């Protein structure tokens, strides 16, 4: 038996352990401590939301539940208008990047998995090796490239580096391994061409992986900071994180407004998480272990 034989698994991850548990005082204490730890973990998020619902004069009292809750801060921040624009920018960029990754990462993963052709191994290694290149190394050449081609301060400029990812490609390649070749062969005999086979036969069989990939890419682009910060100049082109950063800087003392901006940027992803919780956690493990 070697230690490396045992790899983490998603089997039964979403339910508690099956090993027998004794009912004892120790067990109650264990539960209580874990529960308190969990409360501590969500406190920053709870405080952020609570403060965004407070009047300025209430901000400095430490009550978690505001005495007189108000949506005044939200009205103020949204009437300011800039957050709408940043929100829209972030949504467009995250959506387009997600669609692009879903299409191209799966197409490349599928081709590397199901086709035998000269150069396959080289392409595989080449794409794999890009996982080793940190974004921070590429931002300077990307900036120069954007400047040369006039991509600065545009949606395309923000999006182009993330249109395909090696991580997504390998995640999809792993999942296409589970699609039986017989299915593809049967479709070939039925006269479908390779593009149709990929789209109508193979893709529906890896839907869970596609959904996991979509969530990661969307979340990654929604929270991306350094590249949008570099490539945008005019406030209208900011994404939510870049906008929030500049907003926080100028509203340095109005913490209730900063918390409102932070809440506006966080609440969408929290809702997505609470709705798709089981699914996302399974996806995290699949991606963490297979990607």
């Amino acid at each position, binding site marked *: 038996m070697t230690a490396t034989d045992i790899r983490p698994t998603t089997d039964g991850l979403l339910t508690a352990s099956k090993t027998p548990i004794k009912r004892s005082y120790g067990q109650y204490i264990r539960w209580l401590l874990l529960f308190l730890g*969990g409360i501590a973990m969500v406190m*920053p998020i709870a405080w952020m939301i609570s403060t965004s619902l407070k009047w300025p004069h209430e901000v400095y009292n430490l009550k978690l539940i505001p005495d007189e809750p108000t949506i005044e801060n939200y009205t103020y921040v949204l009437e300011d208008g800039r957050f709408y624009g940043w929100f829209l920018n972030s949504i467009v960029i995250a959506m387009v990047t997600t669609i692009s990754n879903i299409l*191209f990462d799966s197409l490349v993963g599928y081709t590397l998995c199901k*086709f035998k052709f000269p150069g396959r191994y080289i392409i595989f290694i080449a794409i794999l090796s890009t996982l080793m290149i940190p974004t921070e190394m590429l931002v300077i050449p990307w900036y120069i490239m954007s*400047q040369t081609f006039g991509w600065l301060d545009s949606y395309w400029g923000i999006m182009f580096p993330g249109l395909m990812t090696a991580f997504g490609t390998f995640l999809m390649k792993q999942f296409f391994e589970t699609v039986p070749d017989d299915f593809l062969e049967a479709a070939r005999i039925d006269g479908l061409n390779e593009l149709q086979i990929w789209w109508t036969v193979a893709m529906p069989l890896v839907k869970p992986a596609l959904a996991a990939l979509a969530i990661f890419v969307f979340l990654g682009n929604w*929270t991306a900071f350094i590249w949008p910060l*570099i490539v945008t100049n005019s406030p209208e082109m900011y994404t939510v994180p870049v906008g929030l950063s500049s907003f*926080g800087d100028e509203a340095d003392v109005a913490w209730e407004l900063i918390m409102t901006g932070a809440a506006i*940027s966080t609440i969408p992803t929290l809702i997505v*998480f609470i709705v798709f919780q089981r699914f996302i956690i399974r996806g995290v493990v699949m991606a963490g272990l297979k990607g």
Partner: protein
Amino acid sequence: MPFRNSLTIRQKHILWAWSFLALPVLFYVVIRFYPTGNAIVLSFQNWNLLSDRTWAGAENYIKLWNDEVFWKVFKNTFVYLLLGTPFSLVISFFIAFHLDRVRFMHGFIRMMYFLPFMTSAVAMAWVWRWFYQPVPVGIFNNILATFGIPQINFLNSTTNALPSVLAPAVWAGLGFQVIIFMAGLRAIPTSYYEAARIDGVSGFTILTQITIPLLKPTIIFITVFSSIGFLRIFDHVFNMTTNNPGGPLNATKPLVLMIYDTAFNGFDMGYAAAQTVVLFTVLLCVSLLQLYLLRDR
């Protein structure tokens, strides 16, 4: 179509494969490989974006070697790594180990630990920055004041600022690590534990002799994953110290922030590129170490 019919099935297959790959290959060459080469070439040049690029030989690297700020930043980057990784590893293992043995409200408790992972680093950096403010604004100092404990200067102190900036980064990553650890714990066959129990082995021995050795692949994965994350820390530092990025006195400045500053505030592109090559080398070593540790024996 005579041309199409003249191809064998195998040739058609190859043609399909390459037509699927044409655009992605172009993308990886232009957006990944060319810029990598470009960054390396640029690190041997001087360029301020306006004038012509001139060859500088190893000048940028020599300048880096003699730059006190660089060594300070290099040290900071490793302090982030050496504080952040062990802390988050131990805490997340502890949580996962116990959460695995809890059934009542299991899903809800797991959700509470995972929720911070879904937040944006920028938003949470601002929330934590607010927590760290002196009285009457910041929560931490208010709590200290309530118990009559002296105030702590979190973000404006050269000694406290770095751990203060690191805390939200550890906090945000814990949930991910807990989930991966739990997946690792689940993969250990229960028969091992049963055998140990029959032999009357103590809980501590089970932990050190069975659980931890069998978790080795998981531990290595999490260590490398979080190490790379801490070596690339930027969002938290930038947003918690916007009035003086990386301050006070460069006490919190990590390598990525220095790269950003050199390139986009100082427009010393060659010098910044040399710094990215250093970052790349460090990350490459960490990744190769993972491959070495996980190699099949």
